[in-house]
């Protein structure tokens, strides 16, 4: 599999201030691209634009060479986005949360697969606790279990390490590298120091 997300002359203005202007981006299979910049430099805004949630920008987006407008459906089928809010329903158990996410992409999935994914993020034993009663970090881990569970090529992750403990951070980092090496690609923002790796590329904002 090979894919590529391109941005040409991207520009976004907030409050009469250009967050970025004339930004050209090429994100390819096998890469981890880290967006860097101080607070308020526009990292979240950029990720939202790239994943098609914000429309208030200038410039063009291309998915595998096609303009995003036409390729949108195909793009969404390959995208996994995790934002500041984890998207975990407090009233549902981790298992039920994952079941819904799988179904959203049109697959039924299987219970053992979901249990395995939860175990992989260290939530074995919490499968049936309502997610609202989990700690901040555990809730984010439920969301992170989707990385293991759903097969998507492009991961867009906004501060995925928030509230995750040290071992968790290390495991997640390894997972990102493995995903890139197996041909996926990752777009990530974080204020954590990431270990150097040949697949890691940085883009500086602000």
């Amino acid at each position, binding site marked *: *599999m*090979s*894919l590529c997300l391109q941005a040409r002359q991207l520009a976004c203005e907030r409050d009469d201030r250009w967050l970025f202007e004339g930004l050209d981006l090429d994100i390819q299979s096998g890469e981890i691209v880290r967006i860097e910049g101080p607070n308020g430099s526009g990292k979240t805004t950029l990720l939202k634009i790239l*994943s*098609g*949630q*914000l*429309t*208030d920008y200038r410039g063009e987006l291309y998915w595998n060479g096609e303009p995003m407008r036409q390729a949108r*459906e*195909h793009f*969404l*089928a*390959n*995208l996994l*986005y995790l*934002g*500041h*809010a*984890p*998207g*975990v*329903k*407090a*009233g*549902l158990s981790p298992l*039920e949360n994952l*079941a*819904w*996410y*799988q*179904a*959203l*992409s*049109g*697959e*039924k999935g299987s219970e053992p697969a979901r249990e395995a994914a939860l175990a992989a993020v260290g939530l074995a034993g919490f499968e049936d606790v309502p997610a609202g009663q989990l700690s901040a970090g555990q809730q984010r881990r439920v969301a992170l279990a989707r990385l293991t569970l759903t*097969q*998507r*090529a492009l991961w867009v992750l906004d501060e995925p390490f928030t509230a995750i403990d040290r071992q968790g951070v290390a495991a997640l980092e390894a997972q990102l590298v493995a995903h890139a090496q197996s041909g996926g690609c990752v777009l990530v923002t974080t204020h954590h120091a990431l270990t150097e790796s040949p697949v890691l590329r940085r883009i500086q904002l602000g």
Partner: protein
Amino acid sequence: MHAPQGGLMVAIKATLKRDLTLMLRRRGEVLNPLVFFALVITLFPIGISPDPELLASIAPGLLWVAALLAALLSLDSLFRSDYDDGSLEQLLLAPQPLAALGLAKVAVHWLLTGLPLALMAPLLGIMLSLPAGSYAVLALSLALGTASLSLIGAIGAALTVGLARGGVLLSLLVLPLYIPVLIFGAGAVQAAIFGEGIAAHLAILGALLALALMLAPWAIAASLRISING
């Protein structure tokens, strides 16, 4: 690399199941609109007058207005909790037509709000000495009408979901749009009381519902996209 998959039915079914589970898990939620309905209906005899004749003459209107308000108030939470915890973002990024998923959510809302309200209304009708012979029509008109109300109201809920205090703004947006449904719904009950034909009223309620079913899902999808945008 994945091509877009079918599986729309899987996604719709899962959304129906999820929303049903969430609502039923807090049994209170399902009862709340019903209790509100009953309470408002009790307020009127207290505020107006306990005279049965007077009450009977205004009962169809009171019942319909109170049911409409109960349905309206439960709408605010339709998309809000999904918005707050980030699930709505994910719903929008799902490789499925948003209009269909939105419609599934609305269907659950009607099933757990509109339908129970319609079933409960005859009971409250007794309390207001609603004339006999109009109970079935009351329930039927409410069942049909609340479906339109849920659909139209969901547009308003989708438009206001990103706003801090959507509640009252939502009422302002959707109440004017509710008026045709109210007129024909309450009209049907009154026609039944006066022994006139009710077919015309119910037919129009059906037509309104068909129109709402055709147009509302698109408006809901567009509104959700706007709200996510900020």
